[in-house]
Structure formats: structure tokens, C-alpha cells
């Protein structure tokens, strides 16, 4: 009989060693993220088709979005991805207080993204009657393409809405992680919850990296010099 050596905290017995456990955890998270790719992929595929069918309307719609808020939010999300990566780095080198600090920073940046999205963009769109189903007004200056502009805004609100929902879930995950990190649950040997939640957070960042050019930028910004 082999000597039963002390095993690291968080080690589950069905695995050979911590390395195998970590790999299995990441693989499982990636499988979930692949289903998320297909989930968002349906929206992206239909966006491409309807954009091809109603290009003038999509360009009018894109012009009505504010690039500055889209670009600012991209920067905020990229910074939050950096702080998330640094939180995991802090766990790997065994710095507990830095972990908590970076996790809180990530949460604040995520909340800042949502605040910019909701107050400066969605609320502004509502006031401007650009929300389909909530008093959308087709403007005469849009011409014949005007009847299809609500289609663009349906995509805009569903895509950014689904993304925002993922952000809210992410902030919920970060809240739990912050408490766990504060209690010293993560060690250089075991930080799987941080690692897989980090994968989720970066995935949501990647979705926005594609939404930003698709919704804000490729609508022929140069026509008439933008705003």
C-alpha cells in the first residue's frame, strides 16, 4: 500500500494530479464557451444576412449610434480583461490582497461598461424613439430604406442586450470570487474557479470586440464625415 501523502487543497480524488484537474476544468469551460459561440453565432449569422439584404437601412441605423461611446466601452472592457488576467496572476504567485483588489477593479469596470451602455446609449435611443416596440418613429429623411431601420435596431438591442446580460452574470461570478479570494480559498496550486471565470470574462470581451465594428463602424462612417 502506498503512503497517503497530504494533497493540496481543492484537489479532487478522481484526478491523477493537479495538472490533470486543471486541464479538465479548463476543457469543460471551453466546451461551455463553444456552445456560447454557437449561441451568439446565430445572431451574427442573421445579422450578416439582413445586412446584405437591407444595407442602406443598416448604414442609416449604424450612423445613429455614437462611436465615441462604443470605443470608450471597448477600452473599458479591455482594461477589465487586463485586471481579470492580473487577478489570476496574483493567485498564481500567491498574493491574496492583490487578487481581491484586481477582482474588485474588474467588477467596477464591468459596472462602468453597463452604466455607459444603459444611460448614454440605451436611454438616449429610447428618448430619440429608436427602440422597436417602444414608440419607434421612422423619420422621413431616411427615405425608402426607412421602413427597414427598425430591423437594424432589433439586432442592435438583441445583440448588445444579450452581451449585457452576460456582463451582469459575469459581475455576479466576480462577486462570489471576491469573497472566496478574501477568505484565502485560492492558492498557487488551486485557483480553478478564478481561471474558468476568467475564461468566461474574456469570452464576453471578445463578443464585444466583434460587436463594436459590426454595429458601430462598418456602416459607412465616412459618408458625410460621420457625426
Amino acid at each position: 500500500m502506498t503512503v497517503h501523502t497530504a494533497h493540496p487543497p481543492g484537489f479532487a480524488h478522481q484526478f491523477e494530479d493537479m495538472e490533470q484537474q486543471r486541464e479538465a476544468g479548463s476543457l469543460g469551460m471551453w466546451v461551455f464557451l463553444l456552445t456560447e459561440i454557437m449561441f451568439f453565432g446565430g445572431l451574427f449569422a442573421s445579422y450578416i444576412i439582413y445586412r446584405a439584404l437591407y444595407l442602406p437601412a443598416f448604414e442609416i441605423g449604424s450612423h445613429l449610434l455614437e462611436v465615441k461611446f462604443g470605443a470608450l466601452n471597448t477600452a473599458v472592457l479591455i482594461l477589465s480583461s487586463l485586471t481579470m488576467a492580473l487577478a489570476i496572476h496574483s493567485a498564481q504567485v500567491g498574493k491574496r490582497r492583490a487578487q481581491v483588489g484586481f477582482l474588485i477593479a474588474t467588477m467596477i469596470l464591468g459596472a462602468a461598461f453597463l452604466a455607459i451602455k444603459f444611460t448614454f446609449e440605451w436611454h438616449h435611443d429610447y428618448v430619440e424613439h429608436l427602440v422597436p416596440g417602444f414608440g419607434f418613429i421612422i423619420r422621413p429623411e431616411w427615405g425608402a430604406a426607412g421602413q427597414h431601420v427598425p430591423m437594424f435596431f432589433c439586432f442592435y438591442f438583441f445583440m448588445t442586450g444579450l452581451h449585457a446580460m452576460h456582463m451582469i452574470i459575469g459581475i455576479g461570478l466576480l462577486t462570489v470570487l471576491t469573497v472566496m479570494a478574501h477568505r484565502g480559498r485560492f492558492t498557487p496550486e488551486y485557483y480553478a474557479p478564478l481561471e474558468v471565470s476568467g475564461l468566461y470574462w474574456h469570452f464576453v470581451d471578445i463578443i464585444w470586440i466583434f460587436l463594436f465594428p459590426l454595429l458601430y463602424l462598418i456602416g459607412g462612417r465616412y459618408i458625410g464625415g460621420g457625426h
Partner: protein
Amino acid sequence: MSGHIVSVKLYLGIFVALLCLTALTTGVAYIDLGAFNTVAALAIAVVKMLLVVLFFMHVKYSGRLIQVFILAGVLFLAILVTFTLADELTRHWSPTPTGWGMLAPFLLRFF
């Protein structure tokens, strides 16, 4: 033994590169490049995605199994988009069916 540790310096470098690419893609959108505007925007987005996936998500240092799984996911997304477009964009290639009447010239040959 813990997983591969990426240095803080590299993380900061990736972060700066991502910010520069965001500024670049925003700037390029205001220059009239015709159809190339869309190509440039998506190409920059793909580069940014690769930076996040390879370094922030540690895929560069992950095992082959995870890398193969991710490629499979990308492949299925490509199938989803390509096949849907192949249907939608080629519908006008064949004539619109007009019911059984279109078979008349063929059937009349037997009478």
C-alpha cells in the same frame, strides 16, 4: 506544480496592443476604402480576438486537446455562417417554381 505563469509585462504589452488596435479600427472607419472598410474592421477584430485568446485566455500555453476543441468550435461557426449564406445569397440563381405547370413542356412530349 502550477500552470504556466504569464509575466505582468506581457499582459501589459497585450493590453496596450489591444488599445492601439481599437484606436486603429475606429480611425480606419472614417476613411473611405469602399468594401475594404468591412474587411479591415473584421481583420482587426480577428487580430484582437487572437491576442485575447492566446494570452489572456492562456491558450498559447494550453494543452493540444483544448486547442483542438477551440478550432472545432470555430469550424462549426464557419459552417453555420457559410451554409446559411450559401442558401440565402444564391436563391435567385434558379427560377422561381411555378407549380406543376413548369412540367408541362416535358410531359407533353409523351402525348
